C-alpha cells in the first residue's frame, strides 16, 4: 500500500509539470500581446516606448523556456504572479475565493452522497416497481438538465413565485442552500443511476443467494455484502462527477454571486486578466488531481484484489 502511494505520488510529478506547461501555454493562445493586455486593462494609453518597458518588466523579451522556468519557479513558491487588473497577488485572491468554492463543493458532494446512496440501494431492491420507475425517470431528467437551468428554475419558483428564500443572501447559510441544490441535483442524478446499477449487479451474484440460503438477515446482506462490494464502482463515479461539479460551480457561482474562484475567473475573463485565469486552472487541476489520487488509493483499500 505504502509503495503504491509513493508510486502514485511520483507519477503525479510529470502530470503536474504537464499541466503547468499547458497552463503557461494558455497565455500564448490568446489574441494579442500580454503586455498590451496588461496595459490596456489598466487603462494606460499605449505607446511603443511604454510597451517595450512593460515587456521587459514582465520578462516577455526573454526566450519561451526562460519565461516558463521563471514562472514555474515562482509557482513552486506559491507565487502565481500579479493580477493585470489591480496589481494584487493572484495567489492571495485565489486563496480567499477558494475557501468559498471548497465550502460549496464539499457540501454539495456530501449532500449528493447522502441522498444518492440510500435512495439508489432502495430503488435497486424495488427494481421494476413504480417507485423505481419514477425515481429513474427523475434522475434521467436531472441528468439531462444543464445546471444553470436548474438554478434559474429553483430561483424562479423558490424565490420569486413562492418567496421561500431571498434572491441575494451572500455568505449566509440561507445563501448556501440554492447553489448547493443546483449543484447537487445533477450530481445526485448521475450517482443514483450508478449506485442502482452497481447494486443490481452485486445482488444478482451467487454469493448473495448463498448468504440468503444460509439465513443471513436481508439488511445485513444489503449493506454489508452488496453495498460493500459495490463501493469501488460508486467511488469511481463520485470521482468522475467531481470534475463536472467543479466546472458546474463556475456557472452556479456566477448566477448566485457566490464569491468563489468560479466568480473570480469570470471577472478575470471579462477583463482579460490572464494570470488569474492561469491560477484558476492550476488550483482546480490540483484539487481534482488530489481528489482522484485519494479515490484511487481508497479503491485499492476497498478492493485488495487489485495489486500493485
Amino acid at each position: 500500500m505504502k509503495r503504491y502511494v509513493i508510486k502514485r505520488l511520483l507519477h503525479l510529478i510529470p502530470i503536474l509539470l504537464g499541466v503547468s506547461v499547458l497552463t503557461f501555454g494558455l497565455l500564448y493562445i490568446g489574441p494579442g500581446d500580454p503586455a498590451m493586455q496588461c496595459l490596456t486593462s489598466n487603462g494606460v494609453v499605449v505607446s511603443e516606448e511604454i510597451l517595450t518597458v512593460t515587456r521587459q518588466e514582465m520578462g516577455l523579451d526573454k526566450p519561451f523556456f526562460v519565461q516558463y522556468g521563471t514562472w514555474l519557479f515562482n509557482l513552486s513558491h506559491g507565487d502565481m504572479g500579479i493580477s493585470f487588473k489591480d496589481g494584487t497577488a493572484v495567489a492571495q485572491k485565489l486563496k480567499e475565493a477558494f475557501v468559498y468554492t471548497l465550502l460549496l463543493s464539499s457540501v454539495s458532494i456530501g449532500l449528493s452522497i447522502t441522498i444518492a446512496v440510500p435512495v439508489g440501494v432502495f430503488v435497486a431492491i424495488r427494481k421494476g416497481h413504480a417507485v423505481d420507475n419514477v425515481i429513474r425517470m427523475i434522475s434521467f431528467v436531472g441528468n439531462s438538465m444543464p445546471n444553470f437551468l436548474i438554478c434559474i428554475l429553483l430561483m424562479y419558483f423558490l424565490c420569486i413565485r413562492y418567496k421561500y428564500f431571498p434572491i441575494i443572501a451572500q455568505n449566509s447559510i440561507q445563501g448556501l442552500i440554492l447553489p448547493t441544490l443546483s449543484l447537487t441535483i445533477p450530481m445526485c442524478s448521475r450517482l443514483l443511476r450508478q449506485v442502482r446499477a452497481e447494486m443490481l449487479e452485486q445482488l444478482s451474484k451467487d454469493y448473495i443467494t448463498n448468504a440468503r440460503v444460509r439465513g443471513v438477515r436481508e439488511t445485513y446482506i444489503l449493506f454489508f455484502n452488496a453495498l460493500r462490494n459495490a463501493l469501488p464502482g460508486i467511488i469511481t463515479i463520485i470521482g468522475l462527477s467531481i470534475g463536472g461539479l467543479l466546472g458546474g460551480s463556475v456557472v452556479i457561482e456566477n448566477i448566485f454571486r457566490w464569491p468563489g474562484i468560479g466568480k473570480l475567473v469570470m471577472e478575470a475573463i471579462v477583463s482579460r486578466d490572464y494570470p488569474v485565469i492561469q491560477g484558476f486552472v492550476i488550483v482546480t487541476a490540483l484539487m481534482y488531481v488530489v481528489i482522484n489520487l485519494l479515490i484511487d488509493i481508497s479503491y485499492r483499500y476497498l478492493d485488495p484484489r487489485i495489486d500493485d
Partner: protein
Amino acid sequence: MTRIHLKKRFVLLLSIAGVLLFISLLAPLLVPNDPYKNNARVIRTAPSQQYIMGTDNYGRCVFSRVLMGARTSIGATLILVSLTFVVGTFIGLLCGYYGGLLDNLIMRLIDILLSVPQMVLAIAVAGILGGGMINAMIALGFTSWILYARLAKSQTLSIKQEEYIYAAKLGGHSGLYIMLIHILPNIAGPLLVNATIQIGTILIGFAGLSFLGLGVQVPQAEWGSMISESRAYIQLAPWAVMAPGAAVVLTTLLFNYLGDTARDLLEVKG
C-alpha cells in the same frame, strides 16, 4: 426488454432525432416571425396566437428564436461531435495499431488533459480566446476527442491479435488499409454509441459556454444565450426562459435516451 422492443424504440427515437435535425436545418423557412426583428410595441407579451411562445424584452418572437437557436445549438454540436469522433478515432487507431513512442506521447498528453476538469479547461480556453462560436467549439473540442481515442485504442489492441489481421498483414496490405478496412468496421459500434451519448454532453456544454457569454455573440439566437439574456426579467416574462430551457432539456433527453437505447441494443458496456 426484448431485442425487438429495443429495436423498435431505437428506430422511433432515431426518426424523432431526424425530424428534429430536419426542422433545425429548415428553421429559416419555418419561423412564423422574424427572429431578429425588434418590436417596441409587443415587448414581453404573453404567449398568444401570433407569438405562440410570447415575446422577449425586445419584442422578438421567442418561438422563432428557439427554432433558429436549434439550428445553431444542434448544428454546432453535431459538427463538433463528428469532428472529434473522426480525429479521436483515428488517433486511437494509430496508437493501438502501432503503439510505441507515438502511443506513449499521446497517452501522456491525455493524462495531462484529463487532470483538468473538462468544463474548467473549456471555460479557460474559451475565456482566453474570447467568445464566438468557433472559439467555443475549439474550447470544447480541446478535450472531447479523448473519449474516442482511448476507446478506439483499447478496442484496436484486442482486435489486433485476431487471425484475420495477421492474414491481412501477410497479404501485404499497408497499415492504413488494415486500420480503415479491417479494424475500423469492427470497433465502430461502441464508438458510435459513445458519440451519441456525447451529443447531450456537448449540447449542454455549448449552452453553458453561451450562458456565460463565451459562446455565440448576441443577438444571434442560441438556447444558452437566450436563457442568459432573459433570466434578468424572468418575473415579467417567464416564457422567454422556459421555452429555450425546455428546448435544451428535451433535445438532451432525446439524444441521451437514443444513446442509452443504442448501448443496450449493441450490448456495449459503460
